[in-house]
């Protein structure tokens, strides 16, 4: 009796988070492919995953590798901003949230790789810095610094943050 959850339960529990991470790291155009390759690869390896492993961190690590493959495959990363309905499966288009997401995706896409990844894994996926470091390689401090640098740049480049700050009552 291992008590390991079914892979269906893993997809149900972590599918949404992994997709958000993929969107943050490779942009909406390639996110579906990154998600699919991540879960297919995870499913292949799942029987050998220790029962006490941190599944979310494990999935993000796989997604990280898939994202690197995809980024290399497309040469210099296509800038995932500017195409309004770039999501291959248009999801709730017309929501004002999407515009903010587009702006955020654009600002994220302009960050150096390490910073963008650190920001995505910590702030979008909610992983602690130790897990982010394990994914990126390098120390926990380096992961924290990369995320902090990324956030500092986003504060200048993400219009949503600035404009809403201005509107604050």
């Amino acid at each position, binding site marked *: *009796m*291992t*008590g*390991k*959850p*079914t*892979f*269906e339960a893993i*997809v149900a529990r972590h*599918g*949404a988070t992994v*997709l*958000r991470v993929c*969107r*943050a790291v490779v942009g*909406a155009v390639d996110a*579906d492919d990154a*998600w*699919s390759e991540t*879960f*297919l690869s995870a*499913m*292949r390896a*799942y*029987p050998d995953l220790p029962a006490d492993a941190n599944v979310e961190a494990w999935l993000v690590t796989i997604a990280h590798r898939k994202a690197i493959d995809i980024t290399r495959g497309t040469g210099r990363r296509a800038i995932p901003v500017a195409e309004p309905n770039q*999501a291959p*499966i248009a*999801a*709730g288009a017309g929501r004002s*949230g999407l515009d*903010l*997401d587009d702006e*955020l*995706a654009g600002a994220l896409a302009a960050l150096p790789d390490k910073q963008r990844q650190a*920001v995505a894994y910590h*702030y*979008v996926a*909610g992983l602690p810095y130790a897990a982010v470091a394990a994914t990126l390689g390098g120390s926990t401090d380096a992961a924290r610094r990369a995320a902090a640098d990324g*956030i500092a740049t*986003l*504060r200048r480049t*993400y219009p*949503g*943050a600035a404009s*809403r*700050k201005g509107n604050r009552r």
Partner: protein
Amino acid sequence: MNTDDDLTSALARAFAETPDHLRQLHNRLVAAAQTDGILDVAYRTVDSPVGPLLLAATELGLVRVAYASENHEAVLQALSDRISPRILNAPARLDSAARALDEYFAGRRHGFDLPIDWRLSTGFRSVVLHRLTEIEYGRTASYGTVAHLAGSPKAARAVGTACATNPLPVVVPCHRVVRADGGIGEYLGGIEAKRILLALEAAA
């Protein structure tokens, strides 16, 4: 993390997806896993006159049919533990089983010729279950008769256990096993379900 911060809270909420989109990605995963031969167990549920039934199949065939009273979540967990955790809700592999059950419950099918994966029953229980398929549609047999058929005339009680732990109820017709005195006996899906199945078969 400072949750009052506009930027970090925007990041924590950003890139939300719709359930629809995730469902399409799930379907894509099912197709790829099937193609790559890593979908060890596929499952779906079907509605029936005896309540929702969980159907599960390996690549070899139908491996499990479960009543709601068996707790479908617990059944899936047991499949994960005993066969493989590579389990997905993947209805396509169970299309022919679902269709056959539909026809059965409509009274239009009297036998199942589905590929079966027998791995969840072993030893004497497996012998008993194989014998059950010889009890014809609309007929019943006593626990003692089945024990006799299975080659152990004194094992009526063990036949009862085999029926109670049948991993493939309805398809492997343990509902056709009744008491020698004419009593309906026990049933893993509940007496009411057994009554419904026997009435269905008697009417056809």
